[in-house]
């Protein structure tokens, strides 16, 4: 009896920080934001509750253009990340053995010891007009004058894929490692081609890992602020930037809060659609990560 009571107390104590964290830093602020997003300023320190903030979003084409653009680019960059990460994960999990495999994994990990800001600034040094890559292209005679690589959509995409690589790699490696090699060998023995093995054995087995990686990368990308702003420059137009602008430079917290909830709704909807398409259950997927 004593030990059970003891165990319960221990559990409560251990859970307390997490619950406090969840309540004080996630649930309460969201409630506050929800209330904020549902009111409108009518005069100095006067507010009435209204749906005006959400109406503005739908009436001003500018805002939903940016919203849709952010969603589409996030999806595309998630797919790119998957395409880049999958072969690497395969090499780490299946082709290399022991030390070589850990080494490659560490090589992928090392850049993430540096903060995202520094990594993004590194890209800026490489790609800016007076930077390394344009100078190299001129030297090789490929371009007559230095080309500006920054401030383009493709650059934003590159930055986003690079930033979120690791978060795709980890779940992919762990789900591929659990795939029994003998299944693949058996398939080869039975005369299956590489493509059909990939389609019927590897991808179904790795599906929870793929889905988990995609969800994490998609959410990180959608909510990314730094990379689109720094690499996209005058044409970045990321929705998070719009939220920041509303809150900080326009003092329009009501509009910012409404935008925040729209973004939350978007990411929830996209994750649900993704799970449905992949035929996965949310709980199973999250256990894999």
């Amino acid at each position, binding site marked *: 009896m004593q030990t059970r009571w003891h165990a319960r107390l221990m559990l409560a104590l251990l859970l307390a920080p997490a619950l*406090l964290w969840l309540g004080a830093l996630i649930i309460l602020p969201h409630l506050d934001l929800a209330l904020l997003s549902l009111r409108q300023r009518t005069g100095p*320190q006067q507010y009435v509750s209204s749906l005006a903030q959400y109406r503005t979003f739908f009436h001003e084409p500018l805002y939903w253009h*940016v919203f849709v653009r952010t969603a589409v680019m996030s999806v595309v960059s998630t797919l790119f990340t998957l395409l880049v990460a999958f072969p690497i994960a395969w090499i780490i999990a299946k082709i290399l053995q022991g030390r070589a495999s850990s080494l490659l994994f560490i090589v992928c990990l090392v850049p993430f010891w540096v903060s995202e800001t520094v990594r993004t600034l590194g890209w800026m040094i490489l790609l800016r007009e007076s930077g390394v890559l344009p100078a190299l292209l001129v030297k090789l005679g490929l371009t007559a004058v230095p080309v500006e690589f920054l401030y383009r959509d493709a650059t934003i995409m590159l930055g986003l894929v690079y930033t979120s690589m690791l978060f795709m790699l980890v779940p992919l490696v762990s789900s591929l490692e659990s795939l029994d090699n003998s299944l693949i060998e058996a398939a080869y023995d039975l005369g299956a081609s590489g493509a059909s093995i990939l389609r019927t054995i590897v991808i179904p087995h790795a599906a929870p890992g793929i889905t988990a990686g995609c969800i994490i990368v998609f959410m990180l990308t959608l909510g990314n602020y730094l990379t689109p702003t720094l690499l996209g420059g*005058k044409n970045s137009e990321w929705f998070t930037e719009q939220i920041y602008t509303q809150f900080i430079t326009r*003092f329009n917290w009501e509009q910012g809060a409404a935008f925040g909830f729209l973004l939350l709704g978007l990411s929830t909807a996209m994750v649900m659609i993704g799970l449905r398409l992949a035929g996965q259950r949310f709980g199973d997927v999250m256990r894999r990560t």
Partner: protein
Amino acid sequence: MTKGRTLKRIAIWIWLGSVCAVSAHAADSQKLRIISWADYVPAEVVAAFKKETGITVELTLSNNEEMISKLRATHGAGYDLAQPSQDRITGPQRDFGIYKPIDLSKVKLGQFQLGLLDIVRRNTTLNGQQYALPYLWGTDGLVVNTKRAKAADYLDLCKPDLAGKTSIRLRRPTLMAFAFAMGKDPFALYSDTKAYSALMDQVGAKLIACKPNFKFFYDNKDQLLNGIRSGEVLAAMMWDTGGWTLNRENPDIQFIVPKSGALGWLDTYALPARGRNDAGAYAWINYTMRPEIAAKITKSVGSFSAAQNTGPLLDPKLKAQFAAAFPDSVVKAIHWYPSIPPGLEEIEGKVLDRVKAAN
């Protein structure tokens, strides 16, 4: 099993961390917390101030919008002294109540230049109470690499031969500057929301047409300085002393007062509503307005102090640069920002958003 154990360990560490964080919080009355712009509070002056008064200055770097937003979030707590621009005080004060009035009896007003004191008194008085005092001022104009480009007014930034080689800040001063360059006076329309909105739409259309010419919209000083130094940017809207700093490194780069007139900004001292060390703040204000300290600050920041009698103490090079750019007639033609009436920033915000999103 190992997974469970790691989780437990992490949970314990978080628990310990939160306990330590709570106990580490202690009050300190000998501390003056200032939120200000980059370079505005030179380390040298902070050290001398501590020596004389025993007060330690704690500095947070910011800009107008962030200062207001931070103070709004805490209802005016967290800092003992803020330094917003003079036109951005009554608006936020009316809406959010983030400042407390200045007690003029605690300030040595004789140390201030009367003209600047007047502007600030006019623009920061709300319900009969004054909310700010002048600190530093300067003007916005054009910085041009004269060897490779020519520009005499803001609209020249849109000339085809400068395509991709110019830069502006996507903020309200740029809207004002372009409005003046287009021959309009935005300040005269401050009270006529409809006409003002129409004017801003015109300015927005102009900026959108001009957008391919801008290499980037700069967000901070270093981004612009690097752009100009590397030659990626040949002409930009910038403040005077930034241009003079670049001029000392490369004589080809010059600050030019636009034909349509320079825009004068004036940053202030203001007391956050729930600041804890007003005595320290007043001591700092009186200290930094002493002519010899003010001259030191001017030398370090490069912007001009609102203090009197700093003339003989200033760096002759800076004085010469100022005299060359601003003969008396030009000083008289400076457009000073009037206090912003409510609602205008919303109009400007939408225009700025449209420019940002345009292709």
